[in-house]
C-alpha cells in the first residue's frame, strides 16, 4: 500500500502541488490533469527523484526516503521523456537498465526477450535505437518499466507517440498487470484510462480534486450533458450560451455535445470521462 500523506512541494517559493493525500493499493490509478497541473511533480516524488517540501510518502507504513534503494527496487518507471543511448540496441539498453535495477543475471536474457516480445519489438531487438520511430522508442520505455516485474508501476504519459493499435496493446498489458500491483498512469489523454482505470485521480490548481471511480465521476454529470444539432448560422450564439464539449460538422448543421449546469431543452446524453475532464478543467 502506497500512501501519500498531505504532500506539498515547492520549487523555491512557487508551489507545484499542495496538500495531496492518497491511498493507493493494487489496481490501476489514472492520474488525470492538464499539463502543468503538478502530475509530473507528484510522480517524481513517488519515484524519489524529488523530496516533498512537507508531508511524506509511505510504502506499507514506512517513509519511502527511509526505504531508499529497497523502495526503488519495487518501482518500474517510465518518465515523460524517455532517455536512451542512441547507439544501443533495445537488448543492450535493457541489459544495462537491468543492471541498474539490480535484476539477477540468471535468466535475464530470456526475461528481456520476453518483455521485448510483449511490447512487439522482437524483430527490432538488435537494431540500434537511433533508427527507431517515436512509437518504437516508447515501447522500449514501456518494456524497461515492466521488465523487473515491479510492485509499483509508474507511467508518465506512456502512450505518447503510439499508434491506435499499439495503444490498445499497451492498455491490455498494463490492465493485466494491475491485478496484483499498483499501477499509476499519468496522462491527459482520457481514453487511455477510461476503460481500464480502477480509480481516477484528478489534480486541479495543484491540489487533489477527485479520487473516484469512473462511474462515480460520471454520476456527478448525469443530467448535465446533452446532445443536439445546431444550424450553422446559430452555432456562434449557441457556443456563447453553453459549454460545448465536442462539435462535429454535418451537412448544414453542427452535431454538438454540451454541458449545462442547469436543465437544458436538449436530448440528455451519457457522460463520459472526457466530459468530466473538460468540465473540470474548463
Amino acid at each position, binding site marked *: 500500500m502506497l500512501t501519500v500523506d498531505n504532500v506539498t512541494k515547492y520549487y523555491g517559493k512557487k508551489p507545484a502541488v499542495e496538500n495531496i493525500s492518497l491511498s493507493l493499493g493494487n489496481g490501476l490509478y489514472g492520474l488525470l490533469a492538464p499539463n502543468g497541473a503538478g502530475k509530473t511533480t507528484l510522480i517524481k516524488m513517488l519515484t524519489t527523484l524529488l523530496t516533498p517540501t512537507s508531508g511524506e510518502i509511505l510504502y506499507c507504513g514506512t517513509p519511502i*526516503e527511509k526505504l531508499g534503494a529497497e523502495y*526503488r527496487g519495487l518501482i518500474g518507471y517510465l*518518465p515523460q521523456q524517455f*532517455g536512451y543511448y542512441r547507439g544501443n540496441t533495445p537488448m543492450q539498453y535493457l541489459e544495462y537498465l537491468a*543492471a541498474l535495477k539490480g535484476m539477477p543475471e540468471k535468466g535475464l536474457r530470456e526475461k528481456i526477450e520476453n518483455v521485448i516480445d510483449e511490447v512487439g519489438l522482437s524483430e527490432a531487438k538488435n537494431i540500434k535505437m537511433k533508427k527507431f520511430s517515436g512509437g518504437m522508442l516508447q515501447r522500449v520505455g514501456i518494456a524497461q518499466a515492466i521488465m523487473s516485474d515491479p510492485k509499483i508501476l509508474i507511467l508518465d504519459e506512456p502512450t505518447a507517440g503510439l499508434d491506435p493499435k499499439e495503444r490498445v496493446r499497451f492498455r491490455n498489458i498494463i490492465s493485466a498487470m494491475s491485478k496484483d500491483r499498483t499501477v499509476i498512469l499519468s496522462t491527459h489523454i482520457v481514453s487511455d484510462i477510461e476503460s481500464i482505470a480502477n480509480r481516477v485521480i484528478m489534480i486541479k490548481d495543484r491540489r487533489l480534486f477527485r479520487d473516484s471511480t469512473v462511474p462515480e465521476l460520471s454520476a456527478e454529470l448525469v443530467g448535465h450533458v446533452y446532445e443536439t444539432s445546431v444550424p450553422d448560422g446559430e452555432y456562434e450564439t449557441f457556443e456563447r450560451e453553453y459549454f460545448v464539449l465536442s462539435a462535429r460538422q454535418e451537412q448544414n448543421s453542427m452535431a454538438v455535445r454540451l454541458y449545462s449546469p442547469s436543465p437544458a431543452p436538449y436530448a440528455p446524453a451519457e457522460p463520459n470521462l472526457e466530459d468530466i475532464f473538460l468540465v473540470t478543467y474548463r
Partner: protein
Amino acid sequence: MKIISNEVKKLFNPILLITLVVFIYIYCRGFLQLQYWPQVNTGNPWDTEVHAEMIKIFGPTLSRDEMPEFMEFYNGLVTDFEAEMQKSEIFKNNGIENYKQYCEAKGELRMKDELTDEDSAVDAEINRYTFELMPASELSFKLNELENRLLIDIENGGTFATDETIKNRQRYLDDLNPEMAEMIEKKFRSDETSLLTITPQKVVEDDSLHIVIICSLAVFSAVLFMLITDRLRGIYPIALSSKIGRKIFRIQAAVSGFFGLFAGIASCAIYGAALMNKGAGVFLDCPMDNYYYDMWIKLSYRQYLLIMAAAVIVFSGAAGLLSYIVGRFATNYISGLAVSIPVIVALCGAEFLAAAGLFTAQRVWIHSHYWSSAALPFVITLPICIGTVTAVCLILKHDGRRDIL
C-alpha cells in the same frame, strides 16, 4: 560491473577522442618546450651537450678535487678550438693565434664604438667562428658555457673559491641580511657543484604546466560531455529511480577522478619517455641545487621529475573531480563551458604556482628580498586535493537528502 563499464565506455566517445588527439597534437607542437631540447632557454644545443659530456667524465657533480681534470677537459676544448683558428687567414694576418687572443679581440671589438675595415673583418670572422663555422661554433659555445658556468664561479669566489677569493666577496655579503649571507657563503664554500644545466629543469618546469592544461582540457571535455549528454538525453530519471541506479553518481565521480589520474599518468609516462629519449637521462642523478638555482629542498633531478610528475597527476586527478562537480550541476553545454573555463584557469594557475614554488621560491627570496614560502607547493596542492575530494563526497552524501534531479 556492467554499470562501471558503461560509464567508462561513455568517456571514450570516438569523435571526442579524435578531436582531443588533434587538439593535443597541435597544442604540443605549439607550446611544449621539450621539442626544442637541448637548447631551451640557452639558444644553442651545446650548453646541454657539454654538461652531458662532463657528467660522463666526472659524474653528476664536479668536486673540488676534480678541478685539475676539469681544467684538462677545458684546455682540451681550447686546443681543439685553436686548431680550428689556424685555418683562418684573417686571424693569422691580425696576430690572433690562440684562444686567449681570440677572447681579448672579441672583448675589445665589443667595446669599440667605431670599427675600421680591419676590425670589421676580424669581427665578421669571430662571428663566423662563433655562430656559423662547424665545429668551431660548437667548441666556442661549449667553452663559453664552461667559462660562464664554472670559471667565473671560481674567479668570483663561487663553489670552488679559496679563502682569498671569498674575502673579495665579503664586502657584498656584508651588505646582505645575515641569513642570506650565510646561505650564499655556504654555497660558495661548497665542496662540489652539480653539473645539471638549465635546459633539463626549465623544460620540465614549463611543460608541467602545459601538461596540466592539456590534461584538464581533455578531462573536462570528456567528463562534461558524458555528464551533460546523459542529462540532456534524460537517462537520469530512469537510472536514479532504479534500485541501484543512484550508484551511477558515485561511479561517475570515481570514473571522472580515475580518468583524470589516468590522463595525468599517461601524459607523464609519454612525456617522461620523450624526455629520456631526448637525452635527459644523463642528468637524473645531478643535484637540482646548482650554480643557477637555489632550492629550499635538496633534490636530485630524478626526484624533481618524480615530484613534478606527482604534481601533474594530482592536478589532473583534481581536474577529473572538478569536472564531475561542474558536470553534475551544469544543465547544458554552454553553462558547462562557462563554468569550466574559470575553473581550469584557476587549477592551472595553482599548478603553475606550485611547480614554480617548488623550485623558485628561494630564488625569489634571494634576489628580491621578497617574501618566500618554501611550503608554497604544499600550501597550494593540499587544499586543492582535500577540497575537491571533500566537495565530491559532500555532493554524493547530500544526494540522498535533496531533490536529485
